């Protein structure tokens, strides 16, 4: 059986600043879209979401991620 404490931790979504290099990530992401059509870009973003979501894995964290993203839009 897995340790209940580590399970809660892994299900918790990090919402404090956590990027090793935020500017570099933003640049890399923008760069990845260079030269793509809108449809290709949309598809790339979608694939990226699934790659990242699998890394998180835990349902609670993923649900928090969706809710966090939705909430930011509502107040924009």
């Amino acid at each position, binding site marked *: 059986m897995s340790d209940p404490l580590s399970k809660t931790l892994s299900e918790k979504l990090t919402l404090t600043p956590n990027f090793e290099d935020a500017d570099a990530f933003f640049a890399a992401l923008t760069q990845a879209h260079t030269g793509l059509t809108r449809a290709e870009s949309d*598809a790339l973003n979608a694939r990226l*979401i699934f*790659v990242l979501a*699998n890394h998180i894995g835990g349902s609670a964290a993923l649900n928090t991620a969706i809710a966090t993203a939705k909430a930011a839009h509502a107040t924009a």
Partner: protein
Amino acid sequence: MTKIFESPLYAYHRSPDQDAAVPVRHPVLIIGAGPVGLTTAIDLAQLGVPVVVLDDNDRVVTGSRAICFAKRPLEILDRLGCGQQMVDHGIGWSRGKVFSRDRAIYDFNLTDTPGHKRPAFINLQQYTFERLLVEKIRAMQAEGAPIEIRGCNKVEAIGQHYDHVTIEVDTPEGSYTLEADWLIACDGARSPTRRMLGIAFDGEVFEDNFLIADVVMQANFPTERWFWFDPPFNPGQSALLHKQPENVWRIDLQLGPDIDKEREKRPENVIPRLKAMLGEHVEFKLEWVSIYSFQCCRMERFVHGRTIFAGDAAHQVSPFGARGANSGLQDADNLSWKLHLILTGKAPNSLMESYHTERAEAADENILNSTRATEFITPKSDMSRLLRDAVLDLAADQEFARPLVNSGRLSTPCTYRNSPLISADALAGPALTCPGSPCPDAPLSEGHLLDKLGNRFILLTIDAEAPDAFEECGVRAERLALSVRDDPSLTLKRQYLGDCPAGVYLIRPDQYIAARRDSYDDRHFRAALRRATGKE
């Protein structure tokens, strides 16, 4: 090939009931001789409850419907003594391929659970399935079992009373009236019973149409399930190819909404579609073509007074994941022993409420699964299509994305979490066998565990002491004493004990676990048996 659905299987015969001066009262009448009505009838008759099945027709289902039958229904049929016939007539399969556009993205293998007698699935045509059930009924009749099928008996009207139901039946020789203590409506998705009683059937209706073609060919496609998303031969839609016994192949092509069904069904339009899929050179013969659309709906309540709804009449799902007949058989399994106890005065009528609670939970689970599969296969918006396609593109290269691909989740039995019949867990054992779960099978030195359970309450002891039997309020539980040593493969230990040295299980007649504990305790198990029969 002679089509079995063209010859009568239970031809009309005049019943003495039609000449009775006053309507004859039966303990149980079943409307509908589909898979669910027939199974319920067999189960009840084996428990000694006299039963009459009425069907408006006199033969098996026309054309092609269910083909995949899952492990749990096969286990139920084993309990009824006709699982082996189904397996002998069916074909096993475990491998599949998923295609996206013009490429095969991955293969899968549904490995059977080691130690279980039955495979995850067999493929068998619904008409053969129904024929074998009717043959079982004929064999039971020959031995004097109280079971009868009346063909060309169409139920036309229903009257509900406090302690019985009256029905009006139309036959080729005019109509007659019957009464029943309990009426079981297994009359399919369009249930006339539901309509006559004015009960709603709510849910989601899907607009897509699907072309079903059963073709006979000597092709050397392997016995696998092949599923295509957006293939070149059916752009923007899906396709399925699956093998049935006797060189019959099921082809299922999504056609989209707003089509001319009559036109699409004509062979001159079907054949080019199939050639595009199978290849110009492949020789085949069309056995059956139909077009269906589907809905995911259920009744709010499955029990209305003395009328009980089961199978498609109570709940309907999309075919993805093969949950229709498979869940209907589990309704039969759940309902028969309860009705038997009620009719023999060993349980209160209110026990029937638990049929609704348990099977509605299962129906919700099935509807959830099949709605999700439907959304993946036929995305409803541009964004859901984009996300779906992203999953498919990833799945080709990345194993992690494959669990997201949903071309139908295979049917597994529901664990009842909201049931009033289930006692709190008192064993630190595996979650697989917590109370409310169906018993998983295990190999024993002689035969399999499930074959030893039968259709009565069992007190299963594994390396634990207990009395040989006990009786509580007229219901008996018999001990089945086992030891982990009875199963050298240790499946029994793994599934029922985990790290515990011993365990005692109270198992219901439908092979669901009602209670478990680390040792036998008279008060605990008596209370559990009362609870399992609706008396707590």
